[in-house]
C-alpha cells in the first residue's frame, strides 16, 4: 500500500492527461487566486508603501540579502515567528507535510515513477498534515470558551484548514481502499477531488495566501529592525535579563 503509486491504478479509468491537466489547473487557480487576493486586499501596495515610509536609515544590498536569507531560514523554513512551541510544531508538521504531499502528488501524476520513495513520501506528507492539522483544529486554535461555542463550530477562517484536512483525509482513505480493491474507493476518490478543488479554488476567500504574504511580512519586520525604525517600537531596555519568561498559555475565557 505504501509503496504503490495510487494514481497509477487510476490509469485504467482516467487518462493520465486528464489528471495532469487537473494538477496544472489547480496551480493556475492558486496563482490566479493569490494575484486576485493581492489586488483585492492591496497587500503588495501596503508593503511597498510601508517600505517607502520607513527609509530612515539606508540598508545596503548585502544587508538586504542577509535579511532575506534570515527570513527564509528562520521565519519561513523554521516557522520562527511563532511564540508558542505547540503552534510552531503543529505548523511545521502541516507545512512540511503539505510540501511533501503536493510535490509527491505532482511527481506521481506526471511521471509515474517506479521508485517506491514517492508513494512513501506521499503517505508521510499526508500523515504529517493530519497530525499537525487535527492537533491545531481541535486543541490549539483560539476559541473564546466564555461564548459557549462548540469545538465543532465552523467559520470562514476554517475554510483553508478544513479543506486541507478533508483533501488529505479523503485522499489517504481512497488510497487505502484502492489498495484493498474495495468498492468504496471510487466514492472516496470523488470526494477527494471535490475537497482538493475546494482547497485550491478558494484561495481568495481562505487563508491559503498566507504562505505568500507572511514571508513578506516577516521580511518587512526584519527590515524595520535593520533600518532603525522598528515599526516605531522602543529599542530593548538597557537591563540584564534576570527573571526569565513566565508567559502562560492563553486560556481564552
Amino acid at each position, binding site marked *: 500500500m505504501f509503496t504503490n503509486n495510487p494514481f497509477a491504478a487510476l490509469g485504467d479509468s482516467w487518462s493520465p492527461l486528464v489528471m495532469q491537466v487537473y494538477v496544472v489547473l489547480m496551480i493556475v487557480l492558486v496563482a490566479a487566486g493569490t494575484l486576485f487576493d493581492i489586488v483585492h486586499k492591496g497587500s503588495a501596495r501596503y508593503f511597498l508603501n510601508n517600505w517607502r515610509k520607513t527609509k530612515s536609515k539606508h540598508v545596503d544590498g548585502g544587508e538586504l540579502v542577509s535579511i532575506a536569507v534570515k527570513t527564509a531560514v528562520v521565519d519561513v523554513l523554521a516557522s520562527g515567528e511563532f511564540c508558542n512551541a505547540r503552534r510552531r510544531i503543529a505548523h511545521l508538521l502541516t507545512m512540511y507535510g503539505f510540501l511533501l504531499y503536493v510535490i509527491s502528488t505532482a511527481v506521481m501524476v506526471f511521471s509515474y515513477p517506479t521508485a517506491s520513495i514517492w508513494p512513501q513520501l506521499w503517505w508521510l506528507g499526508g500523515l504529517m498534515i493530519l497530525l499537525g492539522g487535527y492537533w491545531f483544529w481541535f486543541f490549539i486554535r483560539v476559541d473564546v470558551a466564555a461564548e459557549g461555542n462548540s469545538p465543532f463550530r465552523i*467559520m470562514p477562517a476554517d475554510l483553508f484548514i478544513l479543506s486541507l484536512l478533508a483533501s488529505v483525509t479523503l485522499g489517504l482513505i481512497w488510497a487505502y481502499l484502492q489498495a484493498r480493491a474495495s468498492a468504496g474507493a471510487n466514492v472516496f476518490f470523488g470526494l477527494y477531488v471535490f475537497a482538493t478543488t475546494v482547497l485550491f479554488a478558494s484561495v481568495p476567500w481562505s487563508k491559503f495566501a498566507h504562505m505568500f504574504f507572511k514571508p513578506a511580512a516577516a521580511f518587512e519586520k526584519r527590515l524595520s529592525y535593520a533600518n532603525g525604525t522598528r515599526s516605531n517600537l522602543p529599542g*530593548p531596555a538597557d537591563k540584564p535579563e534576570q527573571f526569565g*519568561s513566565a*508567559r502562560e498559555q492563553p486560556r481564552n475565557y
Partner: protein
Amino acid sequence: MPTFVYMTRCDGCGHCVDICPSDIMHIDKTYRRAYNIEPNMCWECYSCVKACPQNAIDVRGYADFAPLGHSVRVLREEAKATVSWRLKFRDGREKNFESPIRTTPWGSIKGPAEYAAPRPEDFARQELAHEPEALKTDKALPALRPEQLKRGVA
C-alpha cells in the same frame, strides 16, 4: 484611543483575548487574527499591547486630540522585567521611557490561597490579612483607638 491589530504581524495566538479586561479582543471569523470588536468600549489599558508576543497591537489616537503622525508604542520584556515606551510626536520629537515592572522573580509572590486562612479573631483587628508580617516589618502598625474616634464629639 482604541486598539487595532496589524493583521500581518498577528498570528492569532489569543494572548490579547485572554488578557483584555473588557473582553473586546476577539479572533476574527474570517482571517483568524485578533481584532477589537468594539473600539468604543476600549479603555486604553494597553494590556493587550504589552501582552502581544508579536507586538502586533497598536493604539490609534482619536484625530481631534492626537493628530495624525504621532505614535505611542510599548515593549514589554519579561526576562528583564521592564516596560519601555517610545513616544513620537508629530513634529518629529521623540521621547523614550523605561520602567521596571517588578523586582522579584516571576511566580515568587504567593497567591492569596497559599496563605493560612484568617482566624475568627483576626476579623476584629484593624490590620488587613497577614499584616504586619506581609509588610515585612516587625513593628506594630499604628492603629486608631476607640477613644480617639470620639474626640471632637461634644
